[in-house]
């Protein structure tokens, strides 16, 4: 009887110990596996290769929690502005024919410097810095 109790306790300890070790190592191993997006979002965002970005077009870049509109103008200049319309937060787009930034929700129009030109937007769009570093477009926060 006494022996059985000891054996039982040892088995319990063994099973519990292995379980405990698993409970510790499972999170650790999971932690070591690289996550989906391999890098944290930072103050600057890479927006692709300059040569692959067609002239007179735009794309929306996710800058942390904020959408940013990146425009390559006709003379191959880059412009990056907050893409949230200052009227009701819709995402703006670039009109390649009028060379203006346009919000589809209420027809708000901004110029390429983000100034609200017409329609309901009450304020200009916030500007971001764009640099091309070794062919790669990099958007950074101003200031």
């Amino acid at each position, binding site marked *: 009887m006494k022996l059985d109790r000891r054996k039982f306790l040892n088995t319990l300890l*063994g099973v519990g110990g292995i379980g*405990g070790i698993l409970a510790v190592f499972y*999170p*650790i191993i*999971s*932690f*070591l*596996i690289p*996550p*989906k*997006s391999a*890098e*944290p*979002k*930072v*103050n*600057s965002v890479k927006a692709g290769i300059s040569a692959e970005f067609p002239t007179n077009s735009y794309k929306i870049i996710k800058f*942390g929690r904020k959408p940013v509109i990146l425009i390559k103008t006709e003379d191959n200049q880059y412009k990056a502005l907050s893409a949230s319309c200052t009227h009701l937060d819709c995402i703006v787009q670039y009109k390649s024919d009028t060379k203006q930034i346009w919000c589809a929700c209420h027809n708000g129009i901004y110029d390429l410097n983000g100034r609200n030109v017409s329609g309901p937007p009450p304020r200009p769009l916030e500007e971001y810095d764009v640099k091309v570093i070794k062919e790669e477009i990099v958007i950074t926060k101003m200031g």
Partner: protein
Amino acid sequence: MIGNIGNKIISWIDERYDLSPLNNMLKHKKVPVHKHSMWYYMGGVTLFLFLVQLLTGILLLLYYRPGEDNAYESVRFIVTEVRFGWLIRNVHSWSANLLVLFAFIHMFSVFFSKAYEKPRELTWITGFIILVFTLAFGFSGYLLPWNELAFFATKVGTDIVGVVPVIGEPLKIFLRGGEEVTGATLSRFFGIHVAILPAIFTVFLTLHLLFIQRQGMHEPEHFKNLPEEKKKYIPFFPDFALKDLLLWVIVFNILIFLALYFPWELGNKADAFAAAPAGIKPEWYFMFMFQSLKLLPAHILFIEGELLGVLFFGVAGFVWMLIPYIKVKRKPNWKIQPLTLIGIIIVAFIVIMTVIGYLV
């Protein structure tokens, strides 16, 4: 079966390296049993928490990036994107706080049981140094997430260093890596936190543990005065070790409970130009010093109050470290011995100042 394999491995090693000294030590090491035995476990818990810090710290290092533009984002990334990142980070933060708490408890238990007395002077001194480095760990680690609260707490903390005469200002600039708390401070604190402190810490911790193993557990006076046959001991291995392990498992479980249910907020990213948010507080273990400095009048006899306070804490800390060499006459008719009384006053002061700090 597992036991058999274990025995085989041990005998294999024993054959080559002769484990008998270690064996002897384990066999002969014993722990006294008396009404204050529970305090023997505090050091062990502190050690365990340090090991947790070591492990989680190394894990965090895989994803953490120092630097003004990266630090906050990388911690955010760890917490939200990396699997179990939230757990590792929160365990690291919680364990840090518990570590300081248990280190303090351990220290005061040693103080009140007079375990620092001859021949254990060096154990006390190394222990005190370890505590100072633990606080330095806490202070440097606090800034690493680069959030608002940490930023301003560091600003205030390093400012306090600056009031010390002569060496204060250069020391402040040395700590900050410049005139102000900037990205340079962050890089510096990172280096201190992950390389310099661990290196020094390990040396003193090893010494501390070696001293303890060499001298065995301290026996308090009332136990020493017992007749030999009434002295009760339990063997360190396996009895005491098992109890230690039991406690560690419980502490570990509490740790992950805290990490899950009371996660540490990341807050807002530090902005050097933003106004300091209301309620800037240092970590709780610095609160009593912070609060007493705040309560001091601006000038005490032509000397700046704050300076006097900082000097006082410096001297007090130094005296505290040298306690084993300070002889205080026993007062046979005193109910509480003078040193114990001083200890009680110190504990009461720390507790009261901390409470005031959080209430006011």
